């Protein structure tokens, strides 16, 4: 089944202005359910933009993105947020955790929008923390975590709602080699859980991995 279908996608920043910039040009892409996809390209090539469009964090200038046979390109905010909440797990380069809160509190954040009982919430959080291998630090404030631990906390938050699509934008950019390899291990877990994973990276550690289904090169906003 085609999970994600991207048709003639364009994204132009600051249209009709002096600093107009075309980040994506006529992208056409189809992604299967359960596929692990790596987007390769240098900084500024448009990988992050593509991810943010798939995650409905920004809206395209024209073109369409169809996920599970629903178009998400022009959804009103309530629906795009609901889509992001249920279907997407986003892992950012800068981790984007809520400083001042503990690991558990960060992971609970997406669950606060649901009507689950306390018991269910606890279960889900525990499961996510175990998969991300950060359960031993669950009550620690995130400000006191190392880079790798922060990344794992971010992963736990991204998967706590059990989304089908995981988007990771330069996930290892702020990690050392050891933690990067740990991240790649977690990727294998995602594969076994049949999640659709799209990673934007220019880290060479991701080259030639056997569980990765496809590599796509992006240059100057277009797929090559």
């Amino acid at each position: 089944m085609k999970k994600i279908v991207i048709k003639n996608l364009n994204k132009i920043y600051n249209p009709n202005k002096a600093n107009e910039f075309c980040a994506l040009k006529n992208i056409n892409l189809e992604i299967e359910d359960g596929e692990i996809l790596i987007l390769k390209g240098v900084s500024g090539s448009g990988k992050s933009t593509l991810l943010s469009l798939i995650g409905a964090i920004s809206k395209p200038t024209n073109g369409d993105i169809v996920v599970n046979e629903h178009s998400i390109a022009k959804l009103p905010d309530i629906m795009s947020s609901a889509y992001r909440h249920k279907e997407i797990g986003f892992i950012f380069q800068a981790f984007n955790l809520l400083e001042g809160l503990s690991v558990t509190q960060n992971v609970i954040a997406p669950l606060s929008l649901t009507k689950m009982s306390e018991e269910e919430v606890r279960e889900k959080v525990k499961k996510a923390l175990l998969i991300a291998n950060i359960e031993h630090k669950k009550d620690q404030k995130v400000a006191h975590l190392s880079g790798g631990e922060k990344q794992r906390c971010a992963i736990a938050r991204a998967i706590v709602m059990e989304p089908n699509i995981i988007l990771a934008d330069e996930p290892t950019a702020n990690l050392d080699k050891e933690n990067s390899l740990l991240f790649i291990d977690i990727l294998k877990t995602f594969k076994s859980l049949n999640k659709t994973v799209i990673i934007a990276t220019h880290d060479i550690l991701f080259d030639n991995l056997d569980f990765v289904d496809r590599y796509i090169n992006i240059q100057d906003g277009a797929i090559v």
Partner: protein
Amino acid sequence: MQNKNFIDFAITLLFKDKADYLFSFFIFSFIIFILSSVLFISDAIQFDISQSIKDQPDIVVENTRAGREFHMHEGFIYDISKIAGVSSVEGYAEGYYYFGQKRLWFHLVSDDTLKTNEMVVGQGVKVAMEEFYYKDKFNFLTEERIIVVDITKVAPKSTNIISNDVIYLHPQTLRRILGLEEGEYSKLYVFVPNKNEVGQIALKIVELYPSAKAISKEDTIAEYRHLFYYKGGLFLILYVVVMVSFLILLKNQISLVYGEKKKEIAILRSIGFCIKDIIALKCMQNLVVAISAYLLGIALAYVYVFCLNAPLLRNIFLGTNLSNTISFTPIVDFNVLFLIFIAGVIPFMAFVIIPAWKIAIGDISEAVK
């Protein structure tokens, strides 16, 4: 969306950022404190007055001559007691004595349970007299002589506002001090069993004696009410002006704070919070702050007014004439609390809406890069 999980999370975030809300919390508490104190004092005084007045006669008659207070003779009592509906009329002598040394007026009231050389004084009178070393006796000065009277007792504190500047004397002594003869009365107390007839009878009294004033109990209560109404109203308008200025300040402060919180909001949006959720989050947090500040303000006002007797503020209502040794009866009315809630929390929340919306609609893509 708005469910227990959400509320818990909102409060978690609130406590994480408590420092940001402290400013608004304390200032808002202070404003509620001032407003509540004034309303509590005002209500307590009104309550005390209406309690004290309950036992008073239905109509009090006073006479005037050339526009000034003048005494009445036996004829008045006879004529008024003949009016249908009047059960009895009693005449009393009373008046005001000028205590020159302190430039104060004492209200002299007759009490025939006392002996001729005894008097009972109100708290304020006692303090004023003691300043001039009149501890056990006091010298009343008249044109012809000095009349010495023993100070036997001080009126109990619970008689509050009414007795503060009052001296109770035997009628004979009082007449000697004020220069009233037997058969001359300063006030007539008229008792009317059927309350519905009071208005009519007051009119009839004035028909009989056009220079007299017939004041019914309701008129007295209304008169006091108007006094507080006027003072209270002015104060409230002042309060409103101050509060609106505070809220504008608050709005600017919130906007500033929220500007720094853009990244945090963007993170929440990226994990699935929609604009409505962010607005609800911010409103909920501010509501918690507003309600806690409201409760704190009310509690502090209660302690200030009913335990500490409201130093400083009491003078607005009671005047600084005699040292006011009055304590306020603790009565708190739900209507007053509701009024304070509406006057405080609703405007507060109104000023929070636009900053909350502004930050909720911030662009996420830039912030989460």
